[in-house]
C-alpha cells in the first residue's frame, strides 16, 4: 500500500436541518497529488473539503490525516475572505502571526510569496483597491505562505471572468509544480478540473458519493496552449461523460 496523506472511509455527513450532504465517501490522497473534485453544485464537495480540513466533524465514517498535516493545511475559500481593514501584506502575514512567527522573521517570506503571485507592487494596498482576480491571488498567497503540506481550494475561481480564471489556472498549476504540496481542488467546471488536475474524482449530486476516479494523462507542465490540444479535448470529453453519468 502506498503512503497516504488523507484517507476517508465511508465518510457521511448529515446536518441538523436534515440535509444529508455526503453518503459514504471513500477517498485516499497521496503526497504530491493534484486531485480535482468535480461535481454539480450542492453535491457536498465543500462539506468534504471542510471535513478534510477539520473544520467540521463527519457524522459517520472515518477520516485519517497523516501526522505531517498538523498545522500544515492551507485553505482557499470561494470568496477571497480577506480582512478588509488590513493591507495585502498584513492579510498574508495573518497565518504566520497566528502561529507565533514574529513580523521581522515573516517579512522575507511574505515578500517572496507576494512576488511569486505578481502582487509585489500591491503590498500596501487594501483589498478594496484590488480587482477580484487580484484579491484571489492574495487569498492564495495567504494559504501558501505557511508552506502547507496540503492545500484545499473550494471553487476559488468560480466568481471570476474566464480570462482571469485561465490565467489563475496556469499560475496555480505552476505554483503547485514549484511548491510540491498536495492539492485538493473542488470545482464544478470540467475544463478547469482537467486543466489543473492529475487525478479527478467525480461526485454524484446530493447526497454526494464518489462514482469515478480518473487519472488525467496530460503533460506535467501546462499552459494555455494545452487548452487547444486534442489530448485536452479528449480528456474533457471523457470527464464530461462520467459527470453526466454521475448526474443521471
Amino acid at each position, binding site marked *: 500500500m502506498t503512503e497516504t496523506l488523507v484517507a476517508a472511509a465511508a465518510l457521511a455527513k448529515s446536518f441538523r436541518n436534515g440535509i444529508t450532504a455526503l453518503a459514504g465517501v471513500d477517498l485516499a490522497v497521496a503526497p504530491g497529488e493534484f486531485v480535482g473534485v468535480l461535481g454539480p453544485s450542492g453535491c457536498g464537495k465543500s462539506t468534504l473539503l*471542510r471535513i478534510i480540513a477539520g*473544520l467540521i466533524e463527519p457524522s459517520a465514517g472515518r477520516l485519517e490525516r497523516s501526522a505531517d498535516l498538523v*498545522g500544515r493545511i492551507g485553505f482557499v475559500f470561494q470568496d477571497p*475572505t480577506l480582512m478588509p481593514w*488590513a493591507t495585502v501584506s498584513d492579510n498574508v502575514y495573518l497565518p504566520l502571526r*497566528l502561529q507565533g512567527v514574529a513580523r521581522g522573521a515573516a517579512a522575507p517570506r511574505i515578500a517572496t510569496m507576494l512576488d511569486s503571485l505578481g502582487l509585489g507592487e500591491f503590498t500596501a494596498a487594501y483589498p478594496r483597491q484590488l480587482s477580484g482576480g487580484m484579491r484571489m491571488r492574495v487569498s492564495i498567497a495567504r494559504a501558501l505562505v*505557511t508552506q502547507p503540506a496540503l492545500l484545499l481550494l473550494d471553487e476559488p475561481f468560480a466568481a471570476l471572468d474566464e480570462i482571469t480564471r485561465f490565467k489563475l489556472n496556469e499560475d496555480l498549476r505552476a505554483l503547485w509544480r514549484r511548491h510540491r504540496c498536495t492539492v485538493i481542488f473542488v470545482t464544478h467546471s470540467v475544463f478547469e478540473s482537467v486543466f489543473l488536475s492529475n487525478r479527478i474524482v467525480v461526485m454524484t449530486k446530493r447526497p454526494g458519493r464518489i462514482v469515478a476516479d480518473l487519472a488525467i494523462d496530460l503533460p506535467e507542465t501546462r499552459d494555455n496552449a494545452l487548452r487547444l490540444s486534442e489530448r485536452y479535448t479528449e480528456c474533457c470529453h471523457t470527464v464530461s461523460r462520467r459527470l453526466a453519468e454521475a448526474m443521471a
Partner: protein
Amino acid sequence: MNGASRLWRVMAPTLVGMGFLAAWEAAVWFFEVPPYVLPGPFLIGATLLHDGPSLLGALLVTLRITFAALAVAIVVGGALSILFAQSRLLEISLFPYAVILQVTPVVAIAPLIIIWVNDVFAALLVCATIVAFFPIVANTTLGLNSADRNLVDLFRLYGASRWQVLRLLRLPSALPLFLAGVRISGGLALIGAVVAEFVAGTGGAETGLASRIIEAGYRLEIPRMFAALLLLSLTGIAIFVVLSWLSRLLLRHWHESALESID
C-alpha cells in the same frame, strides 16, 4: 459628485433655513407678537451674544456630564459587548435587561436615581449613561457577532486563541458598528444630561443649561430661553459632527461608509 451638486448640498438647506428665519422674523414683526410669547430670530441672536458668557458656564457643566456619560457608556457598553461575544449564555441572560433599561423613559427613573445617589453630578451622570449606553451595547454586540464566518474558520484552522480571534478579527469587524453606536450615543448623552437636570431641578452649586432654561421660563425671559436652547442644539450638532469625523478617520481605508467616491 460634481462641483455644482456639491454646492447645492450646502445652498439648498441654507436657503430653506434663511427663508424660514425671514418668515419668522416677518411674522413676529407683522403680528406684533410680544417677545415673552415668541421672540424673533434677531432678538434671540442678540440675546445669545449678550447672555452667551453667562450661559457658557452652564454649558460647560452640561458638557462635563455629557462627555463623562459617553465615556462611561463606551467603557461599560464596550466591555459588556465583549463579554456577550465570549459567552452566548451571558448574552441571553443579560441582554433583555439592557433592553428594559433602554425602553424605560429616563424621565421616569431619574427621580429615583436622584433620591438614591446623593451627589448631583453622579446622579445626572447615571441618568445620562443609562440613556447613552444601549446603542453602543446593541451595535457592538451585533458587530462582534457578525465577523465573516469563513474568516472565523480560517482563524480556527491556524489554531488561533480566543484572544487572537477577539483582537485580530472580532474587534476590527465590530469597529464600524461600534462607531455608529457611539455617534448615536453622543447625542443621547446630551439629551440624557439635559432631561435628568430638568427632573432634578435646580440645586447644587453648579448647574447646567437645563437649569438656565427653567429659570428663564420662570422669569418669562423667553429670548434667553431660546438662546439656551439654540446653544444646546449647536452643541448637539457639534458632537455629531466631531464623532462622524472621527468615525470616517478611523474607517477611511476600508469601510464602505468612509470611502471617498472616486468618480
